[in-house]
């Protein structure tokens, strides 16, 4: 039996290899000349055997055009290659196992779910229900807790879904009215989710560290950030550079915080400046720190990706509504005050009704928005980083 297996397993390989019989100690030893001759013969035969299998040398690349020399270029046309590929696909496409749909981590970032697609199953799969150890709880979260399981609190997912939808509605409305939405997630691994949400909602993101005082002491910290004026279709209107120097620093209209436990300073500054906040509240966090709590597990990156994606989608919907209204000629936000159309007479300033007039002109021609490009501030606000997105001044 063993021999049969051996023949089955090794037979082909053994036959393929034209091995030399072993020379044992007892066998006769050739003279030195004879053995040398033998070895040269072997070498030559090896060489002749190997030569037909040596691959053709790779085509040399022309250093200037970065193309292979014309003599060695592939002769078959693109159509032939495509047909060959299709034929291969037809032959081998159905081979192998069938992979049923499964969780792929990147899909939550590439195609985040919209608020309408939030299901309890999705929240369960993203571990939104797992709280902290029962001894760490904040009793103010008792409303959101479903029960105790293996020493941890279980957050009830229907409450999570309801609060998430409510927060999404708020983000959508604020984006529709042209407010500045700031997405904050300063834990490791939250950066991509936060950036993606800001990208969708045309908002801002922060993923490194909140510089304390960026709101309460903004003139010192963000004073040198570049701002710009855009019209209702988000096109930049040049010529306002001098007027923008004297304007106060912009403040967000809505702050979405993914980890309130680490960002108490930010939330406190928002409270001092009367800015509404949305926060992911785990069972050990204090829900009174934020205006709109979303009870969920803030330690699960998948959960954070779902929540940030949903809020980003909501912001995207709001921005779309705003731009659609702008196409129709409606303006959904209050235009910026105190901006003069460049080139107009300066002494008009003294007239008391100048604000109203500017506004009127703006309504007729182009409504002005003030855009803040916080990314251009070197050093202190490097983590503000936005790719030139526009923001509307409502003050």
């Amino acid at each position: 039996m063993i021999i049969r297996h051996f023949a089955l397993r090794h037979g082909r390989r053994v036959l393929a290899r034209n091995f030399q019989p072993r020379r044992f100690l007892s066998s006769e030893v050739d003279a030195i000349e004879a053995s040398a001759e033998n070895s040269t013969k072997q070498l030559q035969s090896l060489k002749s055997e190997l030569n037909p299998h040596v691959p053709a040398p790779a085509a040399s690349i022309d250093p200037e055009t970065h193309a292979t020399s014309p003599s060695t270029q592939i002769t078959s046309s693109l159509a032939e290659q495509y047909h060959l590929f299709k034929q291969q696909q037809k032959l081998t496409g159905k081979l192998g196992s069938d992979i049923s749909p499964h969780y792929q981590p990147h899909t939550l970032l590439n195609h985040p779910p919209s608020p309408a697609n939030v299901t309890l199953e999705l929240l369960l799969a993203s571990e939104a229900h797992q709280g902290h150890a029962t001894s760490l709880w904040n009793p103010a979260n008792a409303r959101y807790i479903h029960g105790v399981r293996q020493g941890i609190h279980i957050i009830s997912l229907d409450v999570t879904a309801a609060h998430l939808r409510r927060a999404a509605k708020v983000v959508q409305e604020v984006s529709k009215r042209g407010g500045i939405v700031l997405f904050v997630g300063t834990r490791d691994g939250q950066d991509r989710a936060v950036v993606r949400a800001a990208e969708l909602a045309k908002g801002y993101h922060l993923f490194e560290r909140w510089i304390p005082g960026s709101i309460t002491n903004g003139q010192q910290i963000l004073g040198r950030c570049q701002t710009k004026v855009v019209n209702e279709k988000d096109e930049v209107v040049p010529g306002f550079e001098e007027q923008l120097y004297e304007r106060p620093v912009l403040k967000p209209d809505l702050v979405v915080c993914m980890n309130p436990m680490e960002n108490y300073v930010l939330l406190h500054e928002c409270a001092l400046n009367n800015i509404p906040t949305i926060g992911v509240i785990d069972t050990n966090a204090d829900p009174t720190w934020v205006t709109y709590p979303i009870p969920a597990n803030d330690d699960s990156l998948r959960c954070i990706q779902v929540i940030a994606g949903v809020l980003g989608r909501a912001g995207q919907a709001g921005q779309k509504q705003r731009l659609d209204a702008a196409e129709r000629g409606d303006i959904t936000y209050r235009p910026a005050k105190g901006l003069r159309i460049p080139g107009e007479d300066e002494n008009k300033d003294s007239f008391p009704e100048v604000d109203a007039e500017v506004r009127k002109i703006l309504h007729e021609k182009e409504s002005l928005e003030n855009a803040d490009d916080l990314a251009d501030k070197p050093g202190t606000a490097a983590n503000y980083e936005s790719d030139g997105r526009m923001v509307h001044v409502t003050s």
Partner: protein
Amino acid sequence: MGRYDFRPLRVRQTAKALFDTKRNASLPCWYDTIGNIPPSETLARPILRAPRPKGGKKPSRMFQPLPIHHPEDKLRSEFFGDHPWELARPRILVEDSGNDAKGYDWSKIVQPGKQLDGESVVQRQMWLMKHKQYPKAKAYDVARREFYQHRHLEEIRQRVAKEEALSTGAYFGKGPLEIGMELEDRTWESWKAWAERQIEDEQQTRAQMFSGPQDELSAPELEEALEEVQPAVSELKEAQPASGGPALHP
């Protein structure tokens, strides 16, 4: 102020007050939004445990969350009590859609897309108890034996796969014995280096402590001394007693 800061919850009222007192020229853009979508009630503690009719628990417990129990908890603890090493096996905990368990049919113990583990036994036992009305012990035995059988087949499959891979030239890295030998060799070499250093140091200190004249003989002197002694030795009639060590020092 008190303990809690309610300013985040009262942003709308504050904005209204600031506008009314002319501190702010206009209302913020979110004023209507927050009016239409107000924040939820906070700091309310619902009663989570119905109070017992007589005596019993403390009233403060009424506001604490209840533990969650499932019928399979006991079966699970029983199985893993009997098979503690099942807990040491690696397990996939990632859910695909959150509805993974709905696709399983526990009339068989093997599920496509789910690895066979202790949880399979528990679910199979539950199914047998529910649908075939088996008593708990019998259901456990049936599920357990199916589990052993499939685990056995799985191990055979793995072994054969490994053999096949090895026979076709796969290399799975160093084995535990090779790694152990390497570690031992490294330790031995480092010990050797340390020991040589120690010996050297000791010799040096000894040489420093002894400062007298060096009385060791050089090679020509030694030969001379030997020549002097040899005739005297050969003249002796008696056999030489084997007294080890050189007696050649002059």
